[in-house]
């Protein structure tokens, strides 16, 4: 299967990546590369990973996301996972997966609000 191309979109000083529904391992690894390049290029302060289409979250995916979050943090950014599906959350919890220090938000709008609020110093519970 051809490598699905991931587009990293710049929204002001934030990055938005929409993850496809069933990415293969190569795509997931490429995602990490592209995100870090974009972080460097745009000096972004935050990353939103839109996983609202993702159907399966296995340990490889979770590990790669956790690593990416750490790397993005080292480059000065915060990461938010947006739109996880209910069935994926149930399964991931049962599997015992964690996503490192990633924040979570119900959808992309809230994820962007979260990153903007944090950045502007408004206290967010």
């Amino acid at each position, binding site marked *: 299967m051809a490598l699905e191309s991931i587009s990293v979109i710049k929204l002001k000083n934030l990055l938005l990546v929409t993850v496809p529904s069933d990415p293969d391992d190569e795509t997931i690894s490429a995602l990490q590369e592209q995100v870090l390049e974009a972080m460097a290029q745009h000096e972004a302060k935050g990353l939103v990973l839109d996983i609202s289409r993702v159907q399966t979250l296995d340990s490889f995916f979770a590990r790669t996301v956790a690593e990416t979050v750490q790397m993005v943090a080292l480059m000065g950014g915060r990461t*938010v*996972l*947006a*739109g*996880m*599906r*209910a*069935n994926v*959350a*149930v399964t*991931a*919890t*049962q599997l015992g997966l964690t*996503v490192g220090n990633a*924040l*979570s*938000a*119900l*959808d992309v709008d*809230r*994820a962007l609000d979260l990153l903007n609020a944090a950045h502007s110093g408004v206290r967010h*519970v």
Partner: protein
Amino acid sequence: MKKEMKTPFKSPATVLGSEESFRLLVESLKDYAIVMLDPGGHVASWNAGAERFKGYRGEEIIGQHFSCFYPTESVQRGLPEQELNAAAKDGRFEDEGWRVRKDGKKFWANVIISALRDKDGTLRGFSKVTRDLTERKQAEEQIRQQSNEIMELSTPVMQVWQGVVVAPLIGSLDSNRTQQFMERLLNRIVETNSPVALVDITGVPTIDTQTAQHLIETISAVRLLGAQVVLTGVRPAIAQTLVHLGIDLSNIMTRASLSAGLQVALDILNLKVVRKNDSN
């Protein structure tokens, strides 16, 4: 009854005054199987209730060992002997369990075996009083099933305000119920786009380690979605149990009442309830 029932022990005096009347009373009772056993456990007497429950007539069962009323597995485990020994030792033994009729059908019985001793203390035999509780057991089973169904139906996850859902938990959480509860709660959170979920445990009578772990699991799943849980309805007894069990809920928001939880939800959502102006 052709045989005269031998009474090797003193029977209590009855209002009717004679042992004969007492014997007739016992023999005719249909709701209780009242049976006498010799010290070895063989049937020495029989009554109408025994015939009704177990299906044997007096003449065919007297002299047989009472273990024939027990299912084969119980006999293999030595249950009948254990019960006689317990009765001989403590004077009395009570049990509920399956017994077998003459036709092989099982029934659920409540059995009290008492040791009968004469005034010297010598063991003369046992009395065995049996009640058929099969109907009661079936009714209990049905009630349990129905209350499970009612619990499922009566704990919907409700949206009480934009951004807030409430999930009342009733009863305890085993693995199955947790999975169902988690799925229902998470689906509603996504459907209603609610960042706050109030999980109310007022209806959880006692909390054990298993239920607490399942609750914690549920809260983790909600967090993965991007929502928060406030655990409400934490009563003093529950609070005590949680601390005694060493369960760490320090990174989970908890409140004693649902209304306090709602206040927390409003704070999180940056909302405030304001009284309308009277001048309107």
